[in-house]
C-alpha cells in the first residue's frame, strides 16, 4: 500500500508542473519517505524492479523541480542519487523513463558547463559514450545540446552560443533556466577577449559584440570592468602586457640564473 501512496504522489507531482512549483518539495519528502519504507531509495539486491522504476521517477521529478527552483545543490544531490539507478538499468527494458534519464543527464552537463567545470563535463561525457554508444547519443537532443554548446564555447564562436540559447533550439523549459547564466558567462569571456584583442572600440560596436541592449548598458558594463569610455569609444587598459614583457627581461631574473648555475656546478662535482 505504500506503493499506491507513492503512485498517488507521483501523479500529483506530474500535474503540479505548471502551477505551484513551491509545493513540490513537501510532496517530494513524502515520496522519499514512502520509498524508504519500500527500501527503494537506495537500490540494493532485494528491491523489486517496479520499485526501482518508481524510485527513479521520483528522484527525476525531484531533480527537475530543483532546477525550476534554481537550487543547484539539490539538483546535484538528486543526480548523484540517481547514478546507481542509471548504471543498473543499462541493460534492462525501462522504456518510458529513458527520456527523462537523458534529460536529467543533459541538465547536469549544462550545469557543469555554466560553472566552467570542463574537466567534470568531459568525464561525464566519456562515461556516457562508453555506456550508451554513439548512435544513441547522436540522436539524443537533450545531450547534443550541451555538447554543441561546449564545442562552440571552446572554439570561441560566441554568436553560436547566443543563437542556441536564444531561440527555439532549446530542448525544454528547464534548459532555458540555464540560458541566462550562460549568457553572463560568455559576456565576461567576450569582454576579457576584447581587452586583449582591440586597442579600442566604438561603443555601438561594443553593444553588438557584447549582446547588450543599449549604450547605457555598455557604459555600465565598461565601468564595472574598469575600462575607460571617452568620445564614444572604449579604451582598454594596456598595462598588463608591459608587465609581462618586463618579467621576461633577463636582468630582473638574474637571481634565478645564478641559482641554477650553482646547482649545475654542484651536480657536476658529484658526477665527475
Amino acid at each position, binding site marked *: 500500500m505504500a506503493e499506491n501512496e507513492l503512485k498517488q504522489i507521483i501523479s500529483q507531482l506530474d500535474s503540479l508542473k505548471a502551477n505551484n512549483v513551491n509545493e513540490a518539495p513537501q510532496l517530494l519528502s513524502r515520496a522519499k519517505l514512502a520509498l524508504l519504507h519500500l527500501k527503494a531509495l537506495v537500490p540494493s539486491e532485494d528491491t523489486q524492479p517496479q520499485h526501482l522504476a518508481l524510485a527513479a521517477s521520483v528522484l527525476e521529478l525531484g531533480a527537475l523541480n530543483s532546477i525550476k527552483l534554481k537550487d543547484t545543490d539539490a539538483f546535484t544531490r538528486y543526480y548523484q542519487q540517481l547514478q546507481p539507478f542509471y*548504471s*543498473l538499468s*543499462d*541493460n534492462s527494458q525501462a522504456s518510458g523513463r529513458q527520456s527523462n534519464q537523458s534529460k536529467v543527464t543533459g541538465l547536469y552537463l549544462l550545469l557543469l558547463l555554466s560553472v566552467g567545470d*570542463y*574537466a567534470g563535463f*568531459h*568525464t561525464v*561525457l*566519456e*562515461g556516457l*559514450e*562508453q*555506456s550508451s554508444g*554513439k548512435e544513441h547519443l547522436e540522436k539524443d537532443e537533450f545531450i547534443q545540446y550541451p555538447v554543441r554548446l561546449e*564545442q562552440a564555447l*571552446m*572554439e*570561441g*564562436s*560566441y*554568436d*553560436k552560443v547566443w543563437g542556441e540559447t536564444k531561440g527555439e533550439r532549446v530542448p525544454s523549459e528547464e534548459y532555458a533556466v540555464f540560458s541566462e547564466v550562460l549568457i553572463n558567462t560568455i559576456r565576461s*569571456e*567576450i569582454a*576579457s*577577449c*576584447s*581587452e*586583449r*584583442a*582591440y*586597442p579600442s*572600440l*566604438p561603443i555601438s*560596436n561594443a553593444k553588438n*559584440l557584447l549582446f547588450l541592449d543599449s549604450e547605457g548598458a555598455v557604459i555600465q558594463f565598461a565601468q564595472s570592468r574598469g575600462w575607460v569610455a571617452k568620445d564614444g569609444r572604449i579604451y582598454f587598459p594596456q598595462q598588463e602586457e608591459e608587465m609581462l614583457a618586463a618579467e*621576461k*627581461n*633577463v636582468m630582473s*631574473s638574474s637571481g*634565478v*640564473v645564478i641559482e*641554477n648555475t650553482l646547482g*649545475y656546478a654542484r*651536480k657536476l662535482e658529484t*658526477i665527475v
Partner: protein
Amino acid sequence: MADKMDIDAVNGQKEEEKVGPAPELPPERIIFNNFDLIRQAVDAFDSRFTLRALRSISTLRKSDKFVEAIVIGVRTAFPKPNMGARKVLEEMLPESATAMQNGVAATEKEKKDTGDDQQVPELWAYLGILVQVYLYDTQQYQEGADFSENFVEKIRSWNRRTLDPIGAKAYFYYSLFHENLDPKPPSKQSPVIEIRPKLLAALRSAVLRKDNDTQAAVTVLLLRNYISTADITQADLLVAQTQFPTSATNNQVCRYLYYLGRIRAIQLAYTQAHDHLESASRKSPTTGPAVGFYQQAMKLLIVVELLMGDIPERSVFRQPSLESALYPYLKLVQAVRVGDLQAFLRCVETNDAQFRKDGTYTLILRLRQNVIKTGVRMLSLSYSRISLRDICTRLHISSEESAEYITAKAIRDGVIPDSSLDHTNGHLITSSGRDAYSTTEPSEAFHARIEALLGMRDECVMAMRYPMNKHRQELSEAAKARERERELAKEIIEGEGDDGEGDEGGFEGM
C-alpha cells in the same frame, strides 16, 4: 624440437632469455629447472631467481606439450596422489593429460629429495600460475575465474615474502579472466566491478606487509579496472590516496604511467598527461612481442600532443614498429597541422572504428578547436594583416562574426601573441618582432632539460644493485691483494739487492 627453436627465433625474445633455460629443452625439463630456481630463491631470499623462473612462462606456453608438462611437474612436486594441493591443480587440467602421465611420474619420484615438503607453497603457487596460463590460452574463462579466486585467497593467506612475485602474477591473471567474462566492460554490469573489493583488500594487505610487487601490480590492475568502465573519478581518487611503490619493476611502472596519463588526458590536464605518457613510452620495450604497449602509448601521446597545440614530429611516424599502427594518426596530424577542418572531419569519419578501439575517440573529438586554433596561428604567421572575411573562407568558418570572436579568443589564449584586431576595417594585425633569445626562455628550456637528465642519472645510480655482503668480500680481497703486492715488491728488492750489490754500494758511496 626444431620447430620450437624456430618459434623462439621468430618471436625475438629479449636478451635475458638466453640466461634462462636454453630453448631446446623439453617443457618438463624447464619446469624442473624452475623448481630448482625457486628453491634457490627461498634459500637465498633473493627474488631474482623467482623472476627468472617466471620469465620462462612465455616459452613454456608456446609448447604443444604444455599441459602434459604441467601434469608431470605437479606429480613430481607432490608425489602422493591424495595431497589436497595436487588435487586442486589437477582438477583444472583435462583428463587426457592426467591419465597419461601416471607411469612417468613414478620414475621421477626417486630423483627428487624430501625437501619438497618445506618449499611446497612456492612450488604449488608456481604450478598454479602455469595452470592459469593454460586456462587462459584455452579460453576457459569461467573456470579460470573461479580457480583464480581461490588461488589468490590462498596466496594471500600464506603471507610469505618469497611468494610476492608469484602472487603479483596470480592477481594479474585473476583480473584478466574476469575481464573476459560477459557482459564485458564498459557495461556497468560487468563482473570486473565485483572484483574491485577483492583487489582493494589485496592492496591493503600488500601495503601492510610491504609487499612491493603485489602493491604495484594490484594498483595497476585497479586503475585498468576503473578506466575500463569509465569511472574516471574513482581512478583519480585511487591515485590521490595511494602511493605507487618506487621500487616496482619497470613493466609495472610503465603501465602505471600509461594509465595515469590516460586519466589526466580525460581530465584536460594535458601537460601532466604528456609527461606521464612520455616517460611511459621511453621506459617501454620498443621491440619484441611487447611492442603493442609502445604503440598504444605512442598513439595516446600523439593525441595529447595535438591537444596541447604541438605538432608531433614526422620522425615519430617513421619508426618501423610504428609505421602501420600509426597510419590513421598520421593522417590526423596532417589535417591538424594545416588547420583544415574538412580534412580533419573526413579523417575522423573514415577511421572511426580504429579510434574507438584505441579509446582515443573522445579525445580526438576535442581536437576540433585545436584545428581552428592552429589554422589561425598559421595565418597569423604568414600574414601581417588579413581581413576577417579571408579568415572565414580559409578556415571554413560560418560567419564573419564567428571569425571575429574566434580570433579574439585566440589572442587572449596566447595562441597568437602580440596581435590585435582592427574592428572598423575588419582586419587581424600581427606583429612578429619578438626576439626569443633576449628573454629568459632559452635558459628556462635548458634548465628543464638539464633537470630531467640529472634526474634520470640519479635514478640509474639508485637502481644499481650489488649483491649483499659483497663489499666486505671486496675489502678483504683488496687487503689481501695489497699484502701480496708488498711481498712481491720485497722479494724483488731483495732479489735485486743480491745481484747488484756492487753497483748499489757504488751509488751509495756517492
